[in-house]
């Protein structure tokens, strides 16, 4: 085997320029794919992280039918106290759950005593909310990173638009489920950076304040956001949980709860899917590049060395070894291309990270792109290139092994 490698490598070195060109072509392909996969993959992971960790959480549970009319923030679709308690018991016993946060979502009027506008609010338990959406605190660009009763976190657009500053007194006026109007004064404790996606421009108050303003005698919540310990097991856990919750029925015998992963709640999921499709096609192009370039160079190699093949066949070299000789040449080209592409791609990504390229995504500005090469991606790309190289050299190698020595020797 070592000798086959030795001869194959020397044959590759014999046509240095051609080998270099082929390897360069594969290298360029690998670099493109690696950089694209890493950048788009990191972008996707980062955006998913932003969306789930600053607002949505990984999974949300609502009363059945709530999500269909989520834009109205209907108070009459809240989870009833009994259902909420039941759900808390279930979620507390789940090992996969890292944290969960009940929210009361409602719309109201926001006034600074001079002007009035609309606002969407989340009533939350601050500690539980910050655990479930850990990036929420990083969105607080002004003020303290906590939330007490009587305090409100307002979106930056509202603060700018109405000239509301930190510690300013504001009033929230809202209508409760029965239609009566109520108001409460708050102090602005923090300004929230906007985020892309549903709920990205919501304000936050303490859940007890929400109950008070909505005149809610018992705790009714609009949704429960859940953060999982292992995000990669999202779908597996979601189906497990929905199975579990399907047994909870109302008086009409219909399921009480509905469960959604972030994918169903955020339009970014379609962009993420699009990135996956693009990645797939880029990989397909790499396969085509490797296949055609290796096949081309190996067909040439066999054609140029027909007399040599005739000689070694006449001497008695078994056809299998002749086949192996050419397949190893293709394999070596693939390995060289994969390795140099991997190294060069790594260097380019390193400089991309050093350059701290920032981009804007919707309202979020200056997000810094950190492109990480995942070992699995690198391995998958390398293995693909090598396997395709071997496949591409099989046909020419097979032809070489089937050459009749007498005809090959006669070839000029």
């Amino acid at each position, binding site marked *: 085997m070592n000798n086959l490698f030795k001869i194959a490598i*020397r044959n590759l070195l014999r046509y240095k320029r051609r080998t270099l060109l082929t390897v360069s072509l594969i290298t360029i392909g690998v670099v493109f794919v690696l950089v694209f996969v890493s950048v788009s993959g990191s972008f996707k992971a980062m955006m998913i992280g932003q969306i789930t960790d600053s607002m949505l959480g990984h999974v949300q549970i609502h009363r059945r039918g709530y999500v269909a009319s989520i834009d109205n923030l209907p108070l009459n679709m809240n989870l009833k106290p009994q259902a909420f308690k039941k759900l808390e018991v279930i979620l507390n016993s789940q090992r996969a759950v890292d944290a969960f946060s009940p929210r009361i979502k409602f719309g109201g009027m926001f006034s600074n005593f001079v002007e009035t506008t609309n606002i969407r609010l989340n009533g939350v338990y601050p500690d539980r909310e910050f655990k479930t959406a850990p990036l929420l605190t990083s969105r607080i660009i002004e003020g303290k990173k906590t939330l007490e009763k009587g305090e409100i976190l307002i979106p930056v657009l509202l603060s700018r638009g109405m000239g509301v500053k930190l510690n300013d007194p504001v009033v929230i006026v809202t209508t409760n489920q029965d239609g009566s109007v109520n108001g409460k004064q708050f102090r602005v404790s923090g300004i929230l950076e906007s985020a892309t996606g549903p709920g990205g421009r919501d304000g936050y108050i303490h859940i007890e304040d929400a109950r008070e303003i909505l005149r809610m005698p018992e705790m009714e919540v609009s949704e429960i956001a859940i953060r999982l310990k292992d995000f990669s097991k999202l779908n597996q856990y979601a189906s497990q949980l929905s199975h579990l919750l399907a047994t909870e029925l109302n008086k009409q015998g219909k399921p009480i709860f509905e469960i959604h992963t972030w994918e169903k709640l955020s339009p970014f999921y379609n962009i993420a899917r699009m990135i996956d499709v693009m990645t797939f096609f880029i990989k397909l192009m790499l396969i085509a590049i490797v296949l055609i370039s290796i096949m081309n160079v190996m067909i040439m190699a066999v054609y140029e060395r027909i*007399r040599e093949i005739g000689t*070694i066949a006449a*001497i008695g070299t078994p056809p299998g070894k002749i086949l192996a000789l050419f397949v190893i040449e293709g394999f070596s080209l693939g390995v060289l291309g994969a390795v140099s592409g991997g190294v060069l791609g790594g260097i380019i990504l390193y400089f991309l990270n050093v350059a701290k390229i920032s981009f804007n995504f919707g309202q979020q500005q200056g997000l810094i792109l950190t492109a990480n090469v995942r070992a699995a991606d690198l391995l998958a790309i390398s293995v693909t290139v090598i396997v395709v190289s071997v496949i591409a050299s099989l046909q020419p190698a097979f032809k070489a092994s089937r050459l009749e*020595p007498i005809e090959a*020797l006669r070839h000029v």
Partner: protein
Amino acid sequence: MKEKSSMGLVIAEKLSKDYLTGEVVVRALHGVSFTIEPASFVSFIGPSGSGKTTLLNLIGCLDKPTAGQLTVAGADVASLSRKDSAAFRGANLGFIFQDFNLLPVLTVYENVEYPLLMVQNIPAEQRTERVHQLLEAVGMMEQRNKYPDQISGGQKQRVAIARALVTHPQLVLADEPTANLDSQTAYTVIDLMKKMRDELKTTFIFSTHDQKIVGEAEIIYQLTDGALVVNRNGGGKNHE
């Protein structure tokens, strides 16, 4: 070496070979019969197109006869499969070509070693010993690390002789081994082949149309238009 002195090493009986060129059947050999004894030094002579190469290809298991019987080293070579004939060639035959046909990517040493590695799988120690022995015998030890494009034609043919003999074959076939050499070098190469025959008792069969070196053979078969016309004993100075 597996010598079979009781019978001929190569026995041809009414051997014929037809080729189809386009729609015309060309008879390259017809009804050729002969026997070659082990350790002999034989030459097939004749003008180009007389069937020398065809005959050598048949003996060398590179081609199959259209009719007749051909036994080489006790095997009916016409019945061998593609794979078996490769194995048979590797075990029993050595080849020397007109254009030397050394592998350009391998050094002199590696070219001689090639059949032991790729064809016969001989252990390293034995391999080194055999290669050294043959490189000494053909006088190419000093050039062992050179590549074929760094040595002369005569030297290349010496390396080719060493490569043909390294597997200890019973029979070495050489098709026009001196055609690309000047006459002085041609004599040296033929002498070397004869010397190797004497030392190793390997049978040598070579074809030539070069009248000057024909006399070096001990048994000469004349081929004319695909038929064996005369056979006569030639030089054989070194042969008892």
